[in-house]
């Protein structure tokens, strides 16, 4: 068997290769740092494969080009960074309402406003709590290394089609810009034939239309209930990674690049005999509430939960919802541009452990 090609790739490059592996056909985007490698690489790679690359005049246009392309059932993707994503939020609401399978990549940078171009996880709320108007949800995937960025981006196209719902791949600038080995594995990405639903020209069938306007109250209610049911059914897509041992006294919950720093810290502490666990949500929506709650309720000793994030404390709210008051949850906010070293996290974890011990006595 031929060995899969291994390359050294940035997270953003891994995303492009993942999209190409899923046979993404259209890319529309507008330049913004720190994700420009995505449109640049797409502009070289997509035309070679008979795909479409177009640099839009704005993020507003880009996301609506996606809307048009998705309406025809084509696999289409856009990417941007925080301020550009904000511009797209209106159309996210439409994409969800119209049930179009778009894939959106956000390589987060610091905010609010123009913020900075340093790494950040400041768009957690935006990604998971709606972003646009009305009741809708994105399925949000948060990789923490290049390989995962590749595989999850490819998977995003399948999930988008499976649920006919927009899917976001959310990563921070560290993951986007760092390089690590990436194995360009062949992936099995399921296809859902667009002929059954998309706008392909009404040949030999009745014409179809998609709308999000329901002036009739009952119709609007039914539309919302239908969407709500769909979001509930997405619960089976929950993904997470956990390293838990009996007797752990502190659990660190983190996602994206922060999870890597946390992982390094807890591995080191475990080697030194400390009882520390680790939990990384991979789907941010649906958030792994249930698995996290189970960890807390099944713990032999009372757990303290530390939530380091590259923002001022956002995911911590979901962690609190998950544990339902059964564990103390401590937020460790690192505002944009301030990235802790694993050593800093170790100090915080130790502080937490000492507090646990003293309480026991």
């Amino acid at each position, binding site marked *: 068997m031929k060995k899969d090609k291994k390359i050294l790739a940035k997270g953003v490059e891994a995303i492009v290769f993942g999209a190409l592996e899923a046979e993404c056909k259209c890319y529309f985007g507008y330049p913004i740092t*720190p994700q420009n490698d995505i449109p640049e690489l797409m502009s070289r790679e997509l035309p070679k494969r008979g795909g479409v690359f177009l640099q839009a005049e704005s993020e507003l246009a880009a996301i609506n080009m996606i809307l048009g392309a998705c309406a025809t059932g084509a696999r289409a993707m856009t990417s941007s960074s925080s301020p550009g994503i904000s511009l797209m939020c209106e159309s996210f609401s439409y994409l969800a309402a119209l049930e179009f399978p778009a894939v959106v990549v956000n390589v987060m940078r610091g905010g609010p406003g123009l913020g900075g171009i340093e790494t950040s996880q400041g768009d957690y709320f935006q990604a998971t709590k709606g972003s646009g108007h009305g009741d809708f949800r994105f399925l949000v995937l948060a990789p923490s290394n290049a390989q995962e960025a590749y595989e999850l981006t490819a998977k995003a196209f399948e999930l988008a089609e499976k649920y006919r719902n927009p899917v976001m791949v959310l990563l921070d600038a560290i993951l986007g810009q760092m390089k690590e080995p990436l194995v360009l594995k062949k992936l099995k990405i399921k296809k859902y034939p667009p002929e059954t639903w998309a706008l392909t020209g009404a040949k030999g069938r009745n014409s179809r239309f998609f709308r999000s306007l329901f002036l009739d109250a009952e119709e609007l209610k039914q539309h919302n209930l239908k969407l709500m049911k769909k979001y509930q059914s997405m619960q089976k897509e929950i993904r997470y990674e956990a390293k838990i041992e009996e007797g752990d006294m502190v659990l660190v919950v983190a996602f994206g690049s922060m999870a890597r*720093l946390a992982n390094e810290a807890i591995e080191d502490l475990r080697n030194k005999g400390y009882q520390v666990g680790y939990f990384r949500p991979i789907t941010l929506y649906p958030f792994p509430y249930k698995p996290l709650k189970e960890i807390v309720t099944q713990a032999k000793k009372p757990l303290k939960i530390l939530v380091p994030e590259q923002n001022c404390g956002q995911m911590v709210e979901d962690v609190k919802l998950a544990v339902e008051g059964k564990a103390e949850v401590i937020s460790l906010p690192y505002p944009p541009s301030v990235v802790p070293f694993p*050593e800093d996290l170790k100090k915080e974890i130790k502080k937490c452990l000492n507090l646990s011990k003293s309480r026991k006595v």
Partner: protein
Amino acid sequence: MRLELIIAGFGGQGVLFTGNLIAQASMLADYHVTYLPVYGPEMRGGTCNCTVVISKKTIASPLVLNPSFLIILNLPSFLKFLPRLKNKGKAIINSDLVKPEEIDNLEVLQKKHKLYFVPVNSLAESLGKPMLANICALGAFYKISKIFSKQNFEEALKYMLGESKAHLIEPNLKAFELGSKYIEEHYQIR
């Protein structure tokens, strides 16, 4: 085996290219690697650095507070990063821009760390290619770290330069040799 490397110098000294090349060559030698550039405003004119972690095991954090290895190409980077070097850590220092005789506490530092002073600018100039000082430093790194083979380096170099810059392979290999030879001649490597 695990090595945490920070490479630092002026923007334009090829800091990021060097880091990328080391990561690429180490990957070819079957190591896990991460390469994290510091990008953005720091790129333009000021100091520039990148972090490369090389390990036999999976690497969690690409960020390193206390590296075990440094490649220092200018004085501001020496002042910024040497205090962060681990005990018994190693550093390749561009002795054209950081003169050993001008370092106040040289003896103290040499007790704590293993310092390799390599005049990479002069070496590159002797080739008539002053731009290749970074590759001279990379040659020195190869000799000291023994992570990847010369073949790994050559393959990585060809990959990174691509076809359009294939004519640069030869001078790069020469610069690499010079750096490597300098270590061989001036330092004892076990």
